């Protein structure tokens, strides 16, 4: 190989090997600076058959929970989660507007359960907005995390403990591939009737292949709402709105954590 090519090729090979080696770690901490790693290693070694990696989760939720009647009072809704809220939040806001509820949204881009669980951001927003009902949509950025139970169980628990006794509904991530256990993990931790499994639903995806399109997200939210009266532990009044989407009272956007 000619010298010029050899020099460039060796730069590319060295860089590639460095990053593929680094990707076998979740992140690397250098002098307090957390360096993210790429997902290359995981993509290569993931095994399809493994549904839940790490410790197994015992789903001991009692399906025969006592369902509350539909609460027709006006609610103060807080909707938190990752970028999936871009599509879901305007539709839920339309429901809120139609039914006389107030609604605030907190979108934390690229967030995961550990991002929320290792800080008191959720608690802060609960204190600030004083919600009577919390919707969560989180987990899309953790679909392929190895040893998920070991790594994320405590954070999911922390999040739910921050919500405390406020009625909530956790909307599961819209899987585009089988996950390594995040859905099971959330289902195991959430109270009965407080988890909506989105896995298995069909979505029209945006160009990134992950996010549902805006109209598909509207249908997704509609499905959640249709599911609630019969299956949710704390159903609230959510009559079909006349408007397709609406604006929440306030949208707080948090940048990805670095």
């Amino acid at each position, binding site marked *: 190989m*000619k010298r*010029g090519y050899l020099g460039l*090729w060796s730069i590319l090979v*060295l860089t590639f090997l460095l990053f593929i080696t680094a990707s076998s770690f979740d992140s690397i901490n250098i002098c307090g600076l957390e360096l993210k790693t790429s997902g290359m290693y995981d993509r290569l070694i993931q095994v399809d058959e493994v549904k839940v990696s790490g410790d197994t989760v015992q789903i001991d939720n009692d399906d025969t929970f006592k369902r509350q009647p539909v609460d027709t009072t006006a609610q103060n809704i807080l909707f938190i989660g990752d970028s999936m809220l871009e599509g879901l939040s305007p539709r839920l806001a339309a429901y809120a507007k139609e039914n006389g509820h107030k609604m605030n949204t907190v979108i934390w881009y690229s967030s995961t359960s550990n991002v929320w669980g290792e800080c008191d951001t959720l608690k802060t927003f609960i204190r600030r907005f004083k919600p009577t009902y919390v919707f969560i949509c989180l987990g899309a*950025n953790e679909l392929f995390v190895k040893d998920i139970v070991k790594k994320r169980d405590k954070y999911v628990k922390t999040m739910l403990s921050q919500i405390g006794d406020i009625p909530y509904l956790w909307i599961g991530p819209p899987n585009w591939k089988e996950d390594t256990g995040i859905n099971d993990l959330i289902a195991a931790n959430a109270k009965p009737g407080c988890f909506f499994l989105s896995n298995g639903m069909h979505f029209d995806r945006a160009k990134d292949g992950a996010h549902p399109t805006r109209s598909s997200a509207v249908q997704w939210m509609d499905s959640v709402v249709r599911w609630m009266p019969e299956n949710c532990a704390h159903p609230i009044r959510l009559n079909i709105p006349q408007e397709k*989407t609406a604006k929440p009272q306030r949208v707080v956007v948090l940048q990805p954590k670095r």
Partner: protein
Amino acid sequence: MQLQDIFSNLMELLSYDATAPMIFSSGLFWFLFILFMPIYAVLKNRRWQMLVFVVAFSLYFYYKSSGLFFLLLVCTSLLDWILSRVLVKLDSKGAKKACVAASIITSLSILGYFKYANFFLWNWNQMVEGNFQPLDIILPVGISFYTFQSISYIVDVYKGRVAPTRTWLEYLFFLSFFPALVAGPIVRADYFLPQVEQNSRPKREEIYLGFWMIILGIIKKAIIADYISQYNDLIFSSPTGYSGFESLMGVIGYTMQIYCDFSGYSDMAIGIALIMGFKLSPNFNFPYKSKNLTEFWRRWHISLSSWLRDYLYIPLGGNRKGTIRTYVNNFLTMLIGGLWHGAAWKFVFWGGMHGVGLAVHKASKPLLDKIPNIYPVKLLSWTVTIIYVSLLWVFFRAESWTDSWLIIKNIFTNFSVAHIAAFLEVRYVWCIMMAVIILSHAMPRRWYDKMGEMFVNSNWLIKTLIFIIVVQFVIQFMSEDVAPFIYFQF
């Protein structure tokens, strides 16, 4: 974990996945390029073997993005090549024209079916108040780019500007050349084919200059454009959900995003081609420095605007048929240029408004030329141009007419300076990114050349370190998934 699992995952990664087209900023591309390079280096001097190898790689590259549609590319190229060979052997002008027409009609029919069939059906149903059921058509990636290349080739052969390639392989190499295949720059046969014939080895400086361009492209596309898009998307997905100031920032952000996204991808394409020993003409030349719309279109997507000029505007009569016809030709060219970007009225409107802007500029040029070219005038010209261009990007980006107007209305009716401090505090990374791109746009061209020269002459370790730092930045700022390239859809 067994080897067969790794092998099976690798096979899955290498197979066609409609949701994960291969783009230059993806890890998979660089993995394959590492395998490609040593073989290419060895074969570079053996012209025919090199051609076969690059064509095979290009077709695989296209397969990875568009599946079996690579066969469509193969068939189109075969038909074009046969027609071009037949064309030069014919004596009758009418027969020659028939060959050109056959090639162009075939290319445009394929493009029309895949890209515009649903658009026309939808409009037809709107007119007759029918029940529109969209056809299940998948748009092959990059079809707009290679269709234009194929048209320019047959026209150039007809006009005698370029000789038809001796073999189909050479033509397929030209049409499927992977650096420019899916998103341009639109390569012109008269510029590219002599390089294929010559097949000269790149110098060491050219290889590293290509690498430098790739690094610049990665910074623009994978770091800046992908990051700032997160905020911009939010504004465009909820047009009335934000204050006027935030909407304004979203519009400015998208103006910069589309430039970084597209010019970054072009830089990578040009850089990869340069490493391979082929020069592609530049596609961008600091377009937001333009002081009028005519200048903007000489600096923005140069390969498309020059193609439209040479194969549409001039054949329509250009400026040779009087003032009114010049304006009309200009307007029609831009209208079609708009439609080229996508099968939707918003693109037609965007193109049409640029046509109007160009016509107004041309009409007022005699008057404008009388104004002294002093600094305040330059500043005013630049301001008017950038505002016009940015406002038109709103129509280009927004989902619908209503959204476009809502965003613009929101800027003017819901604007408050009170939001500025909070915005700077919460979105400081976005602001830093924007500052970087605005400042880099303001830098003189010679600074870039100097930086490129310094990089080329730096030692191996420095180059490696720079590349590692840039890749780490990409990972650090990456959103949940690699953002698709905006111009992919065209």
